[in-house]
């Protein structure tokens, strides 16, 4: 140690021999970045939890919101997010395999597994775009009361009735989005004695027909979701949905971009020249973190 200190006396870099934590500077800093990022995400999810407890009656139940699955008819809650989770876990696996190939200085292996990881990343982003599209376009439609509370149409037992079923009498073609005016809906509601209003929350509390009729006179139709309006329930649900899944999606996007840059470097032989493939481990850490965050988003957005 003493010799080394003398040797590196004029160098601004640390020349202290063994790395105290056993990891290189780059890897350590990636870990510290991920640590701070983990705290940001826990902040978002905790804030969501707080509002969820606060607005329990009008906080939507995820099964009533995310019901679509491509090419499938009828309600298929949770299936699409399960598929998205599967895609992300699988791309995490291919990333570990790329790191593993890097340890063996196996360039072809790294190219194969990193390539698959990038494809997985694009598949996830595509799925998310699809889900956002359906979330924004709307599904069943609902009414906004005078005090901006959202109420669903339902039968007397609390089973949700969609706007299309109410106005047209039929469920409507799958995957299509129909839009109705407030007058159309109010007229259909007045004519149909079997339909009432209910809270979107998990209590599924329904209103009596008389109460519902009185409330309907000042209510307006809401279809789809934005930052200011949300047919699924409390508007903060939509805000948190856009913000949390959007922030996660931004992480996935930057992960894909980082992966592509490193992928090009691998093809050009940069890491063979450098003598090690540690860069794959660093982007790998970031990629696994994206998967890790999704595991929590999946639980707190869709399951709990």
């Amino acid at each position: 140690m003493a010799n080394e200190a003398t040797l590196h006396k004029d160098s601004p870099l640390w020349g202290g021999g063994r790395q105290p934590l056993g990891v290189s500077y780059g890897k350590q800093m990636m870990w510290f970045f991920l640590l701070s990022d983990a705290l940001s995400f826990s902040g978002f999810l905790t804030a969501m939890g707080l509002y969820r407890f606060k607005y329990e009656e009008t906080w939507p139940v995820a099964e009533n919101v995310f019901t679509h699955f491509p090419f499938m008819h009828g309600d298929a809650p949770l299936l699409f997010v399960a598929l998205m989770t599967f895609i992300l876990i699988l791309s995490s696996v291919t990333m570990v395999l790329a790191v593993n190939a890097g340890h063996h200085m196996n360039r072809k292996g790294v190219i194969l597994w990193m390539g698959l990881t990038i494809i997985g990343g694009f598949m996830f982003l595509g799925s998310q775009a699809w889900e956002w599209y359906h979330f924004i376009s709307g599904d069943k439609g609902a009414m906004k009361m005078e005090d901006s509370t959202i109420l669903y149409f339902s039968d007397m037992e609390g089973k949700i009735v969609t706007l299309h079923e109410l106005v047209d009498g039929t469920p409507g073609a799958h995957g299509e989005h129909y839009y109705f005016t407030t007058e159309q809906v109010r007229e259909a509601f007045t004519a149909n004695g079997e339909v009432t209003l209910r809270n979107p929350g998990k209590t599924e509390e329904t209103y009596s027909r008389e109460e519902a009729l009185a409330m309907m006179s000042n209510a307006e139709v809401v279809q789809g979701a934005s930052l200011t309006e949300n047919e699924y329930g409390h508007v903060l649900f939509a805000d948190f949905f856009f913000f949390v899944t959007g922030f996660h999606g931004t992480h996935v996007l930057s992960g894909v971009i980082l992966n592509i840059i490193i992928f090009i470097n691998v093809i050009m032989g940069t890491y063979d020249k450098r003598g090690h493939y540690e860069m794959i481990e660093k982007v790998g850490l970031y990629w696994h973190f994206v998967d890790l965050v999704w595991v929590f988003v999946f639980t707190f957005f869709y399951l709990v």
Partner: protein
Amino acid sequence: MSNHPKLPSEHHESPEGTWWIWKVFIILLVVTTVEVVLGIIKPAPLMTQLLGTSILNIIFIVLTLLKAFYIVAEFMHLKYERSNFIWTITLPMVILIPYLTFIVLTEGGYMNVFE
């Protein structure tokens, strides 16, 4: 040059071959499937209230932490790092995240901003 700071990390061996990667994949897959199935059927006995939420939600959170453990320990390789580094990363997490959650949920209870 063996002490040059740009050299890669000391290599702590994970198990040989790739079988352990597929093992972790199977675990993650099975746990996710269990979560999805429970989430769809929502078995009535698990809807009993416990600690302010349902037993089912507690199961979901435990399974999520289990998945998180496997991702961090195996995929992110943290299990095979030196123990001082493991503590450097995990201690802030296990202290700060529960603290954050606790303080927001308890103090947030007084908040009536929109009423």
